[in-house]
Structure formats: structure tokens, C-alpha cells
């Protein structure tokens, strides 16, 4: 997984400042990518129209055509709107970051850009692009007039299929209190660190993050590509996530900041996987009872005061490999029957998920 993550790609760096442009180009070349650069948005758009690029690294503050205008033009261009964009800027103010993301930027990195974060973000963006390209290829291959007509008549969503896999939900505990206790810039920094660590644990174990929801995320193990031991992989990722968050918590405590805790829910079973969304914005996702159950389990970590909760199917596939404690049946909203809930008790996950507050 990591190999496909960091496969060399063709990148375009756009920055009016020569020092920034040279340095970013150099960092990316050292990571093995092929890099071209442009001094402003207008030149960048011309280059994008001429050549195939996998990813755009975009500065915001530029003469002639600034980054916001570039994002607007990309969104309006059929051929370019799927191109992932990472904004690299030292713009002041959370409002500007939000505006970039609303205009379709995939990620935001503050300057000076940290090389480790840069590598992680580029890996995540390229992985997402790879999935999108795969999907497009699938559509191209199957979209003969006959097949298209057949799909339409049979009423199936294109590439929506039944798979068996594991779903993981993760969320930062007491996020609201955390937000109120620190400046917004620190919250964004914390979220960026959180996502980087979580992406790493998940993709390192063969999972795919398909949704980021405020202070939480959803990941799938076993789709779009089959994964032999999806339940084991999901639990391994979860244990790693809790360990990483513990490390982050220690660092923050030393810096006099509030610690961070997460709750994780995992469920295993059948689900329907495919692309959903609109022309402008589509996402690979899974739907079904398994997904709902994983979300409920994640919520239940607040009640059970455990970091990681899993369902019976996940537990059955784990066998003796991971220590779990049976917490007994719990009645969840939307479920007719009570559901058996298990807590993962190995490693850092043995500690309570949250302090009663």
C-alpha cells in the first residue's frame, strides 16, 4: 500500500516567490517526483491545459492571477476539476483556509512547509486521485452504449456492488471543549496532525479513508480492493491510532495543552460500495447496516469509556489474536435487537476512552 502511495508523480508547483518555488520543487524532487513550476496562476493554467499533471501545489498570494482565482477556474473546467490541489500558503486567518477548502482544495499546508507532512499529504492526495482514475477507467471500459443502457434499465448504480469488509469510525472526544480552549489556528494545526497520523495508521494497514467529518473520519477495509483479513487490519489500525494519539497527547501535555483522546468503532459485514455524489463532488463510500453499526459503536465509546469498540462479527474474525472484553448486549437506536459489544483491551486501548466530564 505504501508503495502505491508514494509512487512518483508529475507535480506542478505554483508560487510567485522564487525562494518558495525553488525550495518546494527541491523537496518534491527529493521525494522522487517529477516537478514543473510556474510563477503565477495564469502561467499555471496554461501549463495544466498543455500537460497531464497528477497534483497541483498552489500558493494563494500571487500577482496576475491569485490562487483563489485558479481554484475557481479549475472547478469550472471539466477536464481539470478532478485534479487534486494542495494549497501551500502562509496566509493569515482561518477564514482564508476555509475559503480554499470550499473552493475545492483538497488540503492546506502552512509555509514553511514541513517535509514529513508534505510527503504524507501528497501520498493521501495521490491515493485519492488513483482511486478516482481507476473509477473513470472502469466507466470508460464498461460504458459502451449497450452496457450503459443495460445499467440504466436494471437500475443499478454504476460500480455499486456488495462487498464484505470492515468499517471504522473515529472521532476526537470532547472536541468542542478543546476548540474553545485554544486559538483557531491551533485547532487547525491539531486537526491536520490528527488526520496525518490517522491516515498513516489506516493506509498502513490497507484501509482507505473515505470521509472526513469535522473532527472525525470514516475508513473502509476490504473495498474498493479486497483485503484478506479486513477485520484484523481494521483493529490493528485502531490500536495504532490510539497509540499515536497517546503520543500526541503526551507531547501536548508537555507543551501545556489539553490532551487529545479518540473513540473508535468497528463493524464487519456486508455492505454496498460505490461512488456517490454529484457531478461536482463524488466520493467512494459504503452504505448499509454494517456502516451504521460502526458509527453507533464509535458513539458508544463515550458511554462505555473504552477507546475501541467492535461488533460480534469483527470479534469472531479476530479469534484469539487480539484481547477483547465482552461488554454485553446494547440497544442501539435504529436496531430492532440489542447488539453484542466488545472492547479491545490490548496496548494503549486498555485505558478509558475519556474521562467523565
Amino acid at each position: 500500500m505504501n508503495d502505491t502511495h508514494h509512487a512518483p508523480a508529475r507535480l506542478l508547483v505554483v508560487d510567485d516567490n522564487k525562494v518558495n518555488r525553488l525550495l518546494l520543487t527541491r523537496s518534491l524532487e527529493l521525494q522522487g517526483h517529477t516537478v514543473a513550476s510556474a510563477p503565477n496562476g495564469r502561467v499555471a493554467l496554461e501549463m495544466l491545459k498543455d500537460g497531464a499533471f497528477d497534483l497541483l501545489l498552489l500558493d494563494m498570494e500571487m500577482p496576475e492571477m491569485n490562487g483563489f482565482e485558479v481554484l475557481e477556474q479549475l472547478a469550472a473546467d471539466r477536464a481539470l476539476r478532478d485534479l487534486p490541489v494542495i494549497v501551500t500558503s502562509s496566509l493569515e486567518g482561518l477564514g482564508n483556509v476555509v475559503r480554499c477548502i470550499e473552493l475545492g482544495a483538497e488540503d492546506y499546508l502552512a509555509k514553511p512547509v514541513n517535509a514529513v507532512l508534505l510527503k504524507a499529504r501528497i501520498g493521501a492526495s495521490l491515493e485519492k486521485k488513483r482511486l478516482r482514475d481507476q473509477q473513470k477507467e472502469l466507466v470508460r471500459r464498461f460504458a459502451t452504449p449497450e452496457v450503459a443502457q443495460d445499467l440504466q434499465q436494471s437500475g443499478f448504480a454504476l460500480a455499486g456492488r456488495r462487498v464484505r469488509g470492515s468499517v471504522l469510525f473515529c472521532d476526537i472526544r470532547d472536541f468542542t471543549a478543546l476548540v474553545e480552549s485554544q486559538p483557531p489556528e491551533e485547532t487547525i494545526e491539531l486537526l491536520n496532525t490528527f488526520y496525518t497520523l490517522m491516515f498513516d495508521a489506516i493506509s498502513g494497514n490497507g484501509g482507505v479513508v473515505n470521509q472526513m467529518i469535522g473532527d472525525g473520519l470514516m475508513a473502509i477495509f476490504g473495498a474498493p480492493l479486497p483485503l484478506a483479513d479486513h477485520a484484523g487490519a481494521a483493529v490493528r489500525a485502531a490500536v495504532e491510532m490510539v497509540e499515536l494519539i497517546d503520543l500526541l497527547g503526551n507531547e501536548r501535555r508537555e507543551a501545556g495543552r489539553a490532551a487529545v483522546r479518540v473513540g473508535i468503532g468497528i463493524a464487519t459485514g456486508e455492505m454496498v460500495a460505490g461512488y456517490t455524489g454529484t457531478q461536482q463532488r463524488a466520493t467512494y463510500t459504503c452504505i448499509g447496516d454494517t456502516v451504521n453499526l460502526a458509527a453507533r459503536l464509535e458513539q458508544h465509546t463515550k458511554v462505555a469509556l473504552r477507546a475501541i469498540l467492535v461488533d460480534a462479527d469483527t470479534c469472531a474474525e479476530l479469534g484469539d489474536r487480539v484481547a477483547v472484553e465482552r461488554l454485553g448486549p446494547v440497544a442501539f437506536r435504529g436496531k430492532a435487537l440489542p447488539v453484542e459489544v466488545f472492547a479491545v483491551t490490548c496496548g494503549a486501548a486498555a485505558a478509558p476512552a475519556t474521562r467523565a466530564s
Partner: protein
Amino acid sequence: MAAPAIDRAAFAELQATAGADFVRELVDTFLEEAPPMLAELGEAHAAGSAEAFRRAAHSLKSNASTFGAATLAAMARELELQGLAAATPASLAALARQYDAAAVELKALRDE
């Protein structure tokens, strides 16, 4: 003795991630690009052009932090955030002096 204008740890990290030879070239680029930025800042101040002033301060801040010129970066950031109206000939002169100090240290580090 005054505090160093360049944070040695930040500069060493830049060298470690980008390569010492490359950083030598990058320092030269900065030493070429920064004086026009400072000049632009002064011209924008004299002409009352707030947007040009903010942009020049922004670029200077960004580059200064790249090389670990923390004080210079902080001063440029103040100018960027507070804008043209809050700047005085004295604050611009202080910025220019801080740049000179950073440039001297950067040249020394480059030639080490």
C-alpha cells in the same frame, strides 16, 4: 551579545532536508530577492498602497521563516497583519536593520 538573527537549528534542518549545496543557492536567491522586497515595502508605504505593502510584507515573512530568521519573520508578520496605517519609518528602518543582521549571518552560514 545580541541574540542570533538566524535560528541555527532551523537552518540546519533546512540543510538536512534540502541538501547543503542546494541551500547555498537558495541563500543566494534570497539575498537577491529580499532587497527589492524591502524597497517595495518602502515604496508602498510612501505611496500609501496598502495591498502592495501587505503583499511585500507577506513574502518577506514567508522567506524569512524558511531560513530560520525568526525575528525578521515576526517583524514582517506584524507589518502584514497591522498593515500600512500602523507602519512608521522607524518600524521599516528596524526591519531593514534586522534584515542586514540576518543577511550577514546567512552569508557566514552559507560559506561555512
